[in-house]
């Protein structure tokens, strides 16, 4: 490119011709990475489909013992964080440092709220001995009121409910790990943004972190109905 002789644009790595090429490469790289993430979670979704069709009653029983209010609250929190992330990307494109920092911070806070609520839910599961392993207990009669209208009530095998909880913890745990990584990435972005490292021309890191964040949100959008809402219509 002709500008190469004049001055290398700010943020341009040596092996790219232009910031446009660099941004497109970064974005494509993140999309490809997200495809690998879909396949990664895909193994768990497959497991879920398989065992839910094998043990439908146990999955409904296990699902009913989850706190739907906390789950719904967290869904709203995450959708909100996607909005603030989208706004952060927008303000990085127009080059507003103050609003970029504001919305990145909001996104991170919402992410932390989600993780906090998840922590409350996990603690509750531990206390009720719903964490799979030697301590796992499933008292069907005690849970009977929660199973109202559930055609499988009374013939639920606790071992298969344990399988539901194993999948619940595997899926939400892996999702939470992605949230923690995402919050860490945003923390780095906040520091860089405060130091003025992003300009209207160079803001690729914000954009691709945004893609990642939205992906993690979308995973939750699938997890919430699959884990919390099954059998609720009956």
């Amino acid at each position, binding site marked *: 490119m002709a500008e190469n002789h004049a001055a290398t644009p700010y943020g341009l*790595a*040596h*092996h790219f011709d232009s910031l446009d*090429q660099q941004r*497109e*490469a970064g974005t*494509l*790289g993140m999309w*490809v*990475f997200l*495809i*690998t*993430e879909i*396949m*990664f*979670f*895909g*193994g*768990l979704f*497959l*497991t879920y489909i*398989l*065992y839910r069709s*094998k*043990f439908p009653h146990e999955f409904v029983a296990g699902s009913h013992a989850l706190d739907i209010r906390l789950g719904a609250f967290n869904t709203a929190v995450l959708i909100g964080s996607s909005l603030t992330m989208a706004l952060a990307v927008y303000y990085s494109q127009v080059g507003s440092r103050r609003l970029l920092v504001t919305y990145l911070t909001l996104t991170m806070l919402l992410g932390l709220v989600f993780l906090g609520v998840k922590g409350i839910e996990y603690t509750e599961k531990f206390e009720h001995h719903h964490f*799979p*392993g030697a301590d796992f207990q499933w008292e069907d009669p005690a849970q009977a009121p929660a199973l109202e209208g559930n055609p499988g009530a009374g013939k639920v*095998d606790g*071992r*298969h409910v*344990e*399988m539901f909880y*194993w*999948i619940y913890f*595997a899926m939400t745990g892996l999702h939470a790990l992605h949230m923690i990584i995402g919050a860490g990435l945003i923390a780095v972005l906040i520091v860089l943004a405060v130091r003025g490292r992003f300009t209207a021309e160079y803001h690729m890191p914000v954009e691709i972190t945004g893609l990642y964040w939205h992906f993690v949100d979308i995973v939750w959008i699938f997890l919430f109905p699959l884990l919390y809402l099954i059998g609720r219509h009956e």
Partner: protein
Amino acid sequence: MIPKQPRTHYLNISYGFKSWLFTTDHKRIGLLYLVSITLFFFVGGAFATIIRLELATPQGDLVQAETYNKLFTMHGVMMIFFFLIPAVPAVLGNFLIPLMIGAKDVAFPRLNLLSWYIFNLGALFTIYAVVSGGVDTGWTFYTPYSTTYSNTHVLATGVGIFITGFSSILTGLNFIVTIHMMRAPGMNWFRLPLFVWAHYATSLIQVLGTPVIAITVLLLAFERVVRIGIFDPALGGDPVLFQHLFWFYSHPAVYIMVLPAMGVVSELVAAFTRKSIFGYDLVAFASIAIAVFGFLVWGHHLFVSGQSVYAGMIFSFLSYAVAIPSAVKVFNWTATLYKGSVSYQTPMLYAFGFIGLFTIGGLTGLFLAAMGLDIHLTDTYFVVAHFHYIMVGGTIMAYLGGLHYWWPKISGRMYPEGWAKLGALIVFVGFNLTFFPQFLLGYMGMPRRYHAYPEEFQVLNVMSSAGASILAVGYILPMVYLIWSMRYGPIASSNPWPATGLEWQTSSPPPTENFEEIPVVTWEAYEFAGQEKEVSAAG
């Protein structure tokens, strides 16, 4: 054009460990991988040596049955995850793709270096498992043996494979973005060398398949630690689910090994017949077709595991379908030879070796894809011979051929042609003597993974062990003379063969940023006609 005065290139621009361990130059990273995988190849080879020594006699007189289980497991794990999968893409692909498309580097150079570190970290875990007592599940890690009953280091090995998977993913990701975004002006998709097409297809598999083995191994490792999990029959879990998930990656993984090898062979055949590859488009699309079909055939590993017969029929049919694009490639290479001006230099000898051995390996694969015959052949030496023909006869042949072909570009020196031809011959003879008897043994019913066998199988087993010794010589020889040639080999010109392709238009070895000036491509792939004039004009 032999530069007489010392010239700055990627090898002599800086010296010292730091300049290598912190490099982001794709060429140096390719060489770092070369060092790592050569080491792991010889570790895996050492296990194979003991296996073949044990099998020289029918009795279990050298090692115990338990030790033998560990030997074939660690041979498989080392060779597959730490040699065959990275061999062509991480060494030759890393070195060549940016050169071939006219780029200064891959799209994400730091990620590229990171992937090498991840690779070695994973290898460290696996080597820890090896030296602290080994692992005995077979490289397939079938549950519930691997989750519940094995008393060996399944966890460390699993963690090692999990970690190494990410290096494979990052390499694939890097190649996809590089091929999409970094091509030189004029280098459109149908001017790309077929090596690049093959790596694009490989990268698709790496990106789509590897995450599945990652989550599978993660679930297996978890289940081993907390003694409860999704493969646990006590919870209603299904151990066969593990086999499905495992082969969903591990069958396409065979194509991760062999597709880049096919890419190498396409380059070799074009260069040493001085013709454009017959049916360029078909060969390019065949790579993609193999990548796509490769994902739909994993069930042929489960014909005897209680999988539904209808599923088996579909998997059988689809496995046959993979033969079509594979055969397209073989036929097109052969057709390229027709009326070509074939020269029988070492890389071409390896290419011939690949075509022959891959054909045998592929056709015997069809035997195994037939459900009825597979019941007889499952878990016999027929299977062992089949996949060694593909992985060793195919991938390693092409890898060695490619290493010789691009050695002048990599090192700036020519290898000794006489020794190299002898080496290629030894490898070919040794390979066939090692593995062809195993087809017969398998057909006669000798099961795999046993350290002792009935006496009537001894003659063929001794042949196999003798072949393995010859093969070992054939593998050590190139290592010796290639290292020798780095210092004493004749200086290579920028295009010694002479071949087409942008990698031959820059100097040998290339400068750090590959080209003095980014080339503008105005010609098709393998256009020898224009080059002939240039060469004859130059003298």
